[in-house]
């Protein structure tokens, strides 16, 4: 049974079809949200919330775009909302600030746990506007056209955001390499400035 048929059944309230859609996408969505948030538990919760919305909003799905794009759109919107909420709730302890200063960590070896931490921290500093396309492109392997469909923006905008996001990421990693560490909760704003 293809995805379109499954979603049609979900529109009729078929929970077995819903379970099948969830089985198809749960790993991808959990991984995407994990890469976005850096928190596995939160990623799982957001993913479950994503599928709940898929179920209730199924009648709003139009088969002009692939089902995957629609599900990733819901997940991205939830992730952005969560990022905004987390930013409002953010409190920084002294210990946390010290931990962010991972001076002299090499980032040439992908197996290096320091590198993973640096990358995650660097990703966290990106504004969600840049983080979403960078994660979709570089971690999930979507094309720019697919990302444009997911975030509902023109391809040119997607290209610009990916480029600016990568640039910011590079700067943050260079800072970490130089031992300057990350500006703990200093998120790069939507204009690309810290």
């Amino acid at each position, binding site marked *: 049974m293809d995805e379109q048929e499954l979603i049609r059944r979900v529109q009729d309230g078929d*929970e077995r079809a*819903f*379970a099948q859609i*969830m*089985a198809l996408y*749960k*790993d991808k*969505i*959990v*991984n995407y949200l*994990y*890469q976005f948030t850096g928190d*596995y538990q939160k*990623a*799982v919760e957001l*993913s*479950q*919330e994503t*599928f*709940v919305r898929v*179920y*209730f909003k199924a009648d709003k799905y139009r088969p002009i775009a692939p089902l995957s794009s629609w599900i990733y759109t819901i997940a991205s919107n939830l992730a952005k909302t969560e990022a905004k909420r987390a930013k409002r709730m953010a409190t920084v302890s002294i210990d946390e600030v010290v931990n962010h200063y991972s001076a002299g960590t090499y*980032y*040439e070896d*992908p197996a290096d746990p320091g*590198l*993973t931490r640096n*990358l995650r921290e*660097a*990703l966290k500093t990106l504004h969600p506007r840049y983080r979403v396309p*960078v*994660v979709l*492109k*570089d*971690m999930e*392997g979507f094309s720019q056209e697919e990302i444009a469909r997911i975030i509902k923006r023109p391809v040119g905008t997607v290209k610009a955001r990916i480029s600016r*996001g*990568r640039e910011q*990421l*590079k700067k*943050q*990693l260079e800072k970490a390499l130089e031992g300057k560490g990350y500006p703990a909760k200093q998120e790069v704003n939507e204009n690309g400035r810290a």
Partner: protein
Amino acid sequence: MEGHELLGKMDKVKAPADFDEGAFTKLGEARRARVRRQAAFRYAFAGSAAVLLIGFVLLNVHVVNTRAVADKGPSEALANQTSFSGRAGDGAPRTYLPVLETVDYSNEFRNVSNQPQTVYILEQVSEVRPTEIKY
């Protein structure tokens, strides 16, 4: 190696084994919340409609009473009155107090003269503004 190239090599995670159970639990909760929300909306809607209806009915009763008294005319209304503080003759509460007042127009014509009136026509004769004289 660039940072974004390294991103693709980072570890991927999978959904936990109890993911589906959790999702269905959330689905059930969301469904119940939805039903509660819909019921609350229905009650709120019905309440608002009832308040509007009562307001409309009260306003209409008031308007109908006022019109009925106005249609009878002041003399009839006066005749129906038993007293200023009582009720009208038909038992309905009085809705207005008629005031009869004589009007004296004699003062209005006191200053009117029998002589023909002079009409002054004011006309602008020059566009030039008066300026200060310099010596």
